[in-house]
């Protein structure tokens, strides 16, 4: 027993196990103990309990590492690792899950959907994300990515009564399965090259190869396709607008933040770990994907009239910016990716939760026109949305600027001047479509629509994301230290 499952193993993996168990607990409670509608709020409390447990454990893990002066703690003979990187991302997942969950309650009521399954799926998906952030073995990583993705396939199609939700789920499932297949094919090639599924062993085998080895190229290319699909980078972004639009808005927020952050953790583990020696092979691929993502994301967003779709394209362009950090590849660039993902998480969630707040019984509230005159009806929401949009565009003093700052700096430091100029100029394009929403909210005359009736949960979620988006822009120091901690190895 002790050989198979040591105390260290347990210590490292326990958040994931507890998340899964809490997920099951929510399902059971839903079935046995709280079947009536008036008891639904307890299900939310169970979820929050699970998150508090995870949070406390992550906090203790972090203290343990710093107290022992360790940079990492390897578990399961190199399949999982506890390090600053995994802790950093797990904190983002915890924050994202809580915020999305508390914003979901009323939304689910309006849509008339089940609460138990929803919260259960969120928790299990987060368990998968844990493995993506902490996994150092192809098998662990693949299980993590599939666990997360399967939950999302279900959640995207959660509104069973709505055609577009079902359509979105099918599209996402088919394309997702295909890309997973390609990725696993790449994994098998890596296994063939190295004879191991451990990332560290694979890294040595990759380093021993010539950079233009055809096997290696094939492995890198197929894995890249899978990873780029997961982070919704062009040209593998096709699913994102449909899935984002069709999914319940709260799920969209979780998909855009949780799934994307976890996939980027996965991507960084792969490219900075075993594939780092293959940089000559994948750097051109990533440059192409990044430029294409920024181009397609920013240009296609211009013509969207659905806010969720617009934000989907904006999220594609953000994936492009984050990839540029990897293209630069120096310390600033990697730190910039961490910072960017952190600020992206909060500003994107905030923007989607405003859309959630606009959902009323009689009104879907997803069109740009539905926001007309919001400043006169609900000034608080309009101002918050303005902050989120400015941040998404990268205008100081909001959080988004700090993210872009790092990416631009990293590109200049590594001599990618043209890329930096292109990335910078797309900011000016982006402002055009973000400000279409602003224009609708602030300039257009208010339409006759039912007033917003939101819950404490939505307000808290918005307040937290809004305040963080501003604070990270005005006083980013503590957050930059946090991101720095994710890189100390």
């Amino acid at each position: 027993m002790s050989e198979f499952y040591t105390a260290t193993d347990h210590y490292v993996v326990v958040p994931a196990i507890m998340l899964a168990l809490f997920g099951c607990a929510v399902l059971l409670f839903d079935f046995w103990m709280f079947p009536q509608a008036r008891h639904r709020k307890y299900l939310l409390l169970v979820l929050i309990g699970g998150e508090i447990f995870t949070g406390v454990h992550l906090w203790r893990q972090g203290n343990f590492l710093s107290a022992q002066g360790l940079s990492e703690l390897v578990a399961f003979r190199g399949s999982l690792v506890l390090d600053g990187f995994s802790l950093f991302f797990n904190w983002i997942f915890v924050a994202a899950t809580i915020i999305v969950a508390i914003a979901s309650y009323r939304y689910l009521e309006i849509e008339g959907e089940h609460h138990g399954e929803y919260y259960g799926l969120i928790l299990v998906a987060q368990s998968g994300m844990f493995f993506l952030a902490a996994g150092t073995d192809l098998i662990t990583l693949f299980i993590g990515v599939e666990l997360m993705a399967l939950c999302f396939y279900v959640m995207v199609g959660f509104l069973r009564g709505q055609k577009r939700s079902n359509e979105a789920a099918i599209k996402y499932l088919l394309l997702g399965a295909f890309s997973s297949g390609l990725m696993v094919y790449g994994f098998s090639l890596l296994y063939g090259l190295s004879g191991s599924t451990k990332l560290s062993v694979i890294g040595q085998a990759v380093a021993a190869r010539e950079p233009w080895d055809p096997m290696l190229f094939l492995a890198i290319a197929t894995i890249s396709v899978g990873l780029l699909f997961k982070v919704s980078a062009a040209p593998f972004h096709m699913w994102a607008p449909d899935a984002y639009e069709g999914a319940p808005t709260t799920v969209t927020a979780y998909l855009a933040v949780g799934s994307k952050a976890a996939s980027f953790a996965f991507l960084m583990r792969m490219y900075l770990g075993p594939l780092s020696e293959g940089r000559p092979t994948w750097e051109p691929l990533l440059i192409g994907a990044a430029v294409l993502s920024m181009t397609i994301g920013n240009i296609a967003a211009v013509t969207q009239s659905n806010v969720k779709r617009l934000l989907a394209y904006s999220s594609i362009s953000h994936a492009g910016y984050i990839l540029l950090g990897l293209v630069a590849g120096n310390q600033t660039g990697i730190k910039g990716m961490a910072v960017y993902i952190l600020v992206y998480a909060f500003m994107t969630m905030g923007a989607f939760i405003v859309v959630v707040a606009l959902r009323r019984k009689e009104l879907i509230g997803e069109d740009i026109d539905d926001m007309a005159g919001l400043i006169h009806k609900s000034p608080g929401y309009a101002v918050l949305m303005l902050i989120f949009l400015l941040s998404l565009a990268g205008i100081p003093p909001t959080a988004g600027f700090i993210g872009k700052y790092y990416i631009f700096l990293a590109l200049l430091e590594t001599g990618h001047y043209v890329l930096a100029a292109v990335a910078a100029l797309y900011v000016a394009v982006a402002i055009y479509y973000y400000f279409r929403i602003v224009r609708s909210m602030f300039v257009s005359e208010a339409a006759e629509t039912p007033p917003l009736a939101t819950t404490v949960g939505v307000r808290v979620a918005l307040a937290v994301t809004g305040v963080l988006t501003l604070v990270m822009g005005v006083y980013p120091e503590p957050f930059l230290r946090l991101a720095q901690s994710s890189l100390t190895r």
Partner: protein
Amino acid sequence: MSNHLLSIVLFTPLAGMLILLLIPAAQKNLIRIWANVAAFAGFLVSLPLWVHFDRGNGGFQMVERGDWIPALGVKYNIGIDGVSLLLVLLTTLTGFIAILSSWNAVDRHEKSYYAMFLLQQTGMIGVFVALDFFLFYVFWEVVLIPMYFIIGVWGGPRKLYAAIKFFMYTLAGSVLMLLGILTLYFEHFNQFNFYTFEISELLKLNLPLGIQQWVFWAFFIGFAIKVPMFPFHTWLPDAHVEAPTAGSVILASVLLKMGTYGFIRFSLPLLPNASIDPWIVQTMAVLSIVAIIYGALVSLMQEDWKKLVAYSSVSHLGFCTLGIFSLNPNGIAGSVLQQINHGISTGMLFLIVGVVYERRHTRLIRDYGGLAHVMPNFAFIFAFAMLSSAGLPLLNGFIGEFTILQGAFEASRTWAAFAVTGVVLGAAYLLWVYQRTMLGQITNAKNRLLPDLSLREWAVFLPFMAWALWIGIYPKPYFDVLEKPVAQLVERVRPGYFEAQAARAQAALIDSGKETTLR
């Protein structure tokens, strides 16, 4: 208290805005009064700067410095020299006048309107006092957002187009400027091994000409769009025409100066080798001269009164940039003074258009004519503003243009010759518009009963008129303030300039001495 004088000047409008937000939107008069009080307070607290300013010191004064984001090496570092002093005073005064002039002009969403103006005040003052490049950039961008709303919400018929065009144009320029800033930041790290955005530290950089040129062009795009220099001026007529009167005043009087200020504060001292690169200087001069002449010619052709004033800005700002790139004390000092003058006289011209627009709701020149008969006071003020703008001696514009032309003449006679035509054309379009709107018979019956200026409107114009007279009759205090910082700047860009001048003067003296002895 006095140690934090500059911070107080900087944040008074912001504090005023925060208090304004607490007033219920229905209390319209209270909102108006408070906004005026806050803006006036902002002006009053800036006056001690003029008193306490040490004219003998060419460096930065009243510096405040503290950590902001240590992880990036960003400091809260503010301070002023003569150039920023004048621009800060222009900002606080213009801000107050703009808010005062909006009393009747704005009749919807007053609260947000005044909040935007006050927020913008802090942003603009911040741009002129920031000594840390990061801080500067933050303020630079902060200014955009209120102006977008001022144009987009309270503007004219094509306000949305104008607002987003203004925003996108400026933003495209600023992000490229940001790349330039980051390049300096990271070159500084390479040379000195620590990250900083402070201007005083970046000045120690020793960059090869190639990098300097690249950074210069990056800055150039940011600043030139803001000025706006030809050919980046196309956002300006739209923004000016669509903005509400007070917005146009702020835009013309202060916002455009952010660009010229950028050249003086950053481009020249940080990139001295690029700034004297003959090719760059020639390009700048040619673009300035094109702006001067083109702006004036286009003004001549305008049928829209406000658009005429807008294009005249292009022409006048051309003088300012020409002065800067003359790279001698006269040119640069004249340019700064002319920036103030342009703020005063163009501010007045926009207010004048605003006065009649409020009464008649048209800006077409042909709708007016013979207004001097019904509005004699107004006609007097228009004449004053027009002559100040056209550069009549004893008024402010003359001093600025004259000094700039002196500088340009020293740099190149050809430049001066071309620039002078701009002065002539300027007089032409201004006098012509005056003639068409004010003189002759009343052509339009609707104009017969227009009321003359009210007391509040007089109050709006008087500070500007007084200032214009002061500069026109006794500009010495202004040149005193500018002398040291400008001398330092010229010495930085052209080391040995003053010694060479002194030597030449000496030689001339000896020559003339010889002549007398021979005789």
